[in-house]
C-alpha cells in the first residue's frame, strides 16, 4: 500500500516542501532525494510484484503490475539522473542571470509535481485516470518549458500546450467511446478499469472499439511524440531547461506510450492483432520518416536530440506493432535504455549550451565546434551518448533494437522492419555527422567559441557518466531486470 502510494506522495511532499521553504542551498538536493525514494520504492514494488503478482490500492484506483513497476523504475532512474544534475544547472542559470531563486523554486515544485503526475499515470488502474494524469503532465510542464520566458520559450510553451491538449483531447474522446463500448459489453458493464478491460476485451463491440482505439492511439501518440501530432516535441524539448528536457524526452514520452501499450492489449483482444498493429506500424514509419527528414538538415543540437526522441518512440511503436513477448520485452528495454541515454544527452546538451551560449551545430559560420578539445569529459559523454543512441553495443539500445528487429522479421513484418532499419540507418548517419561536427576538430577561436573553460560540475559528471554506465550495463546484462522485462511483456501478451 505504502510502496504503491509513495511514488506519488513523495514528490507531492517534495513539492510542498519547496513551496514552503523555497529553493536554496539546503533544499537543492531534496528533489534528488525524492527521486531516489521514487526509484527505491519502484524497485521494491517491482520485487514485490515479481514475487506475488499485481496489487491494487485505494479502492482499486491504483494498480501495479510488472509493467507499471517497470515504468516506475524508468521514471525513477531518469528522474534521478535529471535531479542530480539539477542543482548545478540551476545555479549556473542563476549565475548567468537567466533565472532567479524564485524561478528555481517554481522549477523544483513543478518538477516534483511532474514526477507525481507521471507516477500516477503508470499506477492508475483506470484509463480515465491515466488520461487525467497524462494531461496533468502537460499542464505541469507548460511553465517548465516556458521557464526562460524568451520569445522562443513562450512560443514553444504555447505550441506544446495547444497541440498536446488538442491531441490528448482525442484520447479523451477515445476513452469515452471505449467506456461506451464497455458499458454495452454483453457480460455487463466493465468500466474503464484497465485490467478488466483487457480481460473482457473480446466482449467489446468491434465497430465502436475500432473508433476508440484509433482515437486513443492518435491521442496518446501525440503525447508520445509520434507523427502526425509530433510537432510540439522539438520546440518544447529544445526550449525546456535541460533537466526537464531530459525528463520529458526520457520518460514523459514513454509514459504516454505506456498508455498506448495498455490500449493495445485491449485492442488486440477486441479486434485481433492486425488493427492496432497496422495503426502503430503506420505511425511508427511516419515518425521515423519525419525524424529522418528533419534531422538531415538540422542545425540545432537540442532539436536534433528531440527528433531523435521521435525516432526512438517510432521504434518503440514499431516494436509494439510487432507484438509478441520478444518484441514487447525489447520495447520496454528500449524505453529504459532510451530514457537513460536521452537523459544523459539532454543534460549534456544543456551543459554545452551553458558553456558555449549557442545551440547551433557547428558549421562555417559558427556554432559549437571542436568541443572535445576544450571540454573533453563533457564532449566524451555526449559523443558516447550519441553512439549509445544510434544503437551501438554495449549499450542496451543495441540489444533492444536487435530484439525488435528480430521479432519483426519473425513476425512476418520483414518489409516494414527493413524500411524502419534503413530509416534508422539514415538517422544514425545524420546524428553521427552532426555530433562529430560539434565535438571533433580543432576548436575555433574568436566569438561564438566554447570560451568558458569551467569544469564540469561533479554532480553533472556523475549523472552523465552514471547514466551511460547504467545504459551500458543494461546492454551487457539486464540481470534481475530481465525477469521483470519478461513478466511485463507477458502482461501485455497474456491478455490475448
Amino acid at each position, binding site marked *: 500500500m505504502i510502496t504503491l502510494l509513495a511514488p506519488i506522495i513523495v514528490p507531492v511532499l517534495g513539492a510542498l516542501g519547496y513551496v514552503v521553504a523555497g529553493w536554496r542551498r539546503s533544499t537543492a538536493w531534496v528533489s534528488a532525494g525524492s527521486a531516489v525514494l521514487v526509484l527505491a520504492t519502484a524497485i521494491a514494488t517491482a520485487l514485490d510484484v515479481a514475487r506475488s503478482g499485481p496489487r491494487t490500492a485505494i479502492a482499486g*484506483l491504483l494498480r501495479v503490475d510488472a509493467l507499471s513497476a517497470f515504468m516506475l523504475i524508468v521514471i525513477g532512474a531518469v528522474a534521478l539522473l535529471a535531479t542530480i544534475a539539477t542543482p548545478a544547472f540551476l545555479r549556473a542559470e542563476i549565475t548567468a542571470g537567466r533565472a532567479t531563486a524564485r524561478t528555481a523554486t517554481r522549477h523544483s515544485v513543478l518538477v516534483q509535481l511532474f514526477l507525481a503526475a507521471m507516477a500516477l499515470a503508470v499506477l492508475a488502474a*483506470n484509463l*480515465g*485516470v491515466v*488520461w*487525467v494524469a497524462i*494531461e*496533468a503532465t*502537460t*499542464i505541469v510542464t*507548460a*511553465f517548465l518549458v*516556458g521557464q526562460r*520566458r*524568451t*520569445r*522562443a520559450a*513562450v*512560443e*514553444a*510553451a*504555447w*505550441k506544446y*500546450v*495547444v497541440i498536446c*491538449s*488538442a491531441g490528448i*483531447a482525442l484520447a*479523451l*474522446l477515445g*476513452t*469515452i*467511446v471505449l*467506456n*461506451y*463500448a464497455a*458499458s*454495452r459489453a454483453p457480460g455487463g458493464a466493465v*468500466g*474503464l478499469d484497465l485490467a478488466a478491460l483487457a480481460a473482457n476485451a473480446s466482449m467489446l*463491440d468491434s*465497430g*465502436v472499439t*475500432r*473508433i476508440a482505439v484509433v482515437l486513443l492511439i492518435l491521442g496518446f501518440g501525440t503525447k508520445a511524440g509520434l507523427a502526425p501530432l509530433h510537432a510540439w516535441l*522539438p*520546440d518544447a524539448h*529544445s*526550449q525546456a531547461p535541460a533537466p526537464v528536457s531530459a525528463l520529458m524526452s526520457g520518460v514523459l514520452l514513454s509514459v504516454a506510450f505506456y498508455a498506448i501499450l495498455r490500449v493495445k492489449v485491449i485492442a488486440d483482444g477486441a479486434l485481433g492483432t492486425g488493427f492496432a498493429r497496422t495503426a502503430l506500424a503506420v505511425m511508427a514509419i511516419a515518425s521515423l520518416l519525419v525524424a529522418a527528414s*528533419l534531422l538531415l*538538415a*538540422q*542545425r540545432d543540437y537540442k*532539436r536534433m536530440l528531440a527528433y531523435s526522441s521521435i525516432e526512438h518512440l517510432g521504434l518503440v511503436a514499431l516494436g509494439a506493432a510487432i507484438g509478441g513477448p520478444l518484441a514487447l520485452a525489447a520495447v520496454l528495454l528500449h524505453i529504459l535504455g532510451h530514457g537513460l541515454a536521452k537523459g544523459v544527452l539532454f543534460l549534456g546538451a544543456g551543459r554545452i549550451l551553458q558553456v558555449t551560449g549557442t545551440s547551433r551545430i557547428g558549421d562555417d559560420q559558427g556554432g559549437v565546434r571542436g568541443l572535445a578539445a576544450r571540454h573533453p569529459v563533457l564532449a566524451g559523454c555526449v559523443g558516447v551518448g550519441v553512439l549509445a543512441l544510434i544503437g551501438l553495443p554495449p549499450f542496451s539500445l543495441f540489444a533492444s533494437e536487435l530484439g525488435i528487429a528480430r521479432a519483426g522479421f519473425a513476425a512476418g513484418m520483414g518489409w516494414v522492419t527493413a524500411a524502419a532499419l534503413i530509416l534508422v540507418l539514415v538517422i544514425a548517419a545524420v546524428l553521427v555527422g552532426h555530433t562529430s561536427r560539434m565535438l571533433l576538430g580543432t576548436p575555433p577561436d574568436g566569438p561564438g567559441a566554447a570560451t568558458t573553460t569551467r569544469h564540469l560540475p561533479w554532480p553533472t559528471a556523475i549523472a552523465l557518466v552514471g547514466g551511460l554506465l547504467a545504459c551500458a550495463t543494461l546492454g551487457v546484462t539486464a540481470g534481475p531486470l530481465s525477469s521483470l522485462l519478461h513478466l511485463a511483456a507477458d502482461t501485455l501478451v497474456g491478455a490475448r
Partner: protein
Amino acid sequence: MNETLFVQLLDLACGGLLLTAVLVLWRRELVVIIHVFAVQGAALAALVGVLAVHEDSIELGAVAAGVLVLRAGVLPYLLRRALASAGEARRETRPLVNVAASLLTAAVLTLLAYAVSRPLVELAPSGLMSPATQAIPIGLTVVLIGFFVLVTRRRALSQLVGFLLMDNGITAVGFLTTSGVGLIVELGVSLDVLLAVLVLQILTARMRETFGDTDLDELRELRD
C-alpha cells in the same frame, strides 16, 4: 418527464450545441465568440440536466450544475479576462480558411461525424437511452468543428475557444453515451481543462508581453 418531452428537450440542447459551434465558426468578433461559447456551456449543462431529470439522478444533477458553473461561468470569465487584457485586437483577423469555406467544411465534418458514429449509434440498445445515443453525432461534430477552429483561427483566444469547443463536444459525447465516465474521472477531466485554460491564459498574456500581439502566425521562431 415523458419520453416525448425528453426527446424534444434533448434535441433542443443538442441543437443548441451544434448551433453555437457553427456560430463560433461564423463570427469574427472575439467578444461575440466568447458569448456564444458561454451559451454553449449552458446548452451542455442543459443537456446534462435533461439527462439527470430523465434518469432521476441527483448525482447527475449535481454534475449538471458543475458543468453550468464551469462552462458557462468560469471558463467564459477567464476568456473575457484574457480578452480584456488583449487591448486592441478584439477581432479575429483573417482566418486561414475564410468563413464561407469554413461553414462548408463544417457541413462536411457533420456528415463525417454521422458516418463515423454509425457503429456507436447502432450499439445503443432500444429503450431508455436510445434518444441520447441518437445525438452522439452532434457531439462528435462539435469536436471536429472545435478541432477545425483550432487549425484555422489565428488569434490565441480563438484557439483557446476551439480547444474548449472540442472539450465541450467530448463531454457531450460522454454524457450522451453513458451519462458520464465516473465521478473521479469527470472531476479530474474538468480540473485538467480548467488548469489548461488557466495555463493558456497566462501564456497568452506572456505572449503579448514578448511578442506584442497574439497573431499565432507570428510564432515562427522555432522552425527547421
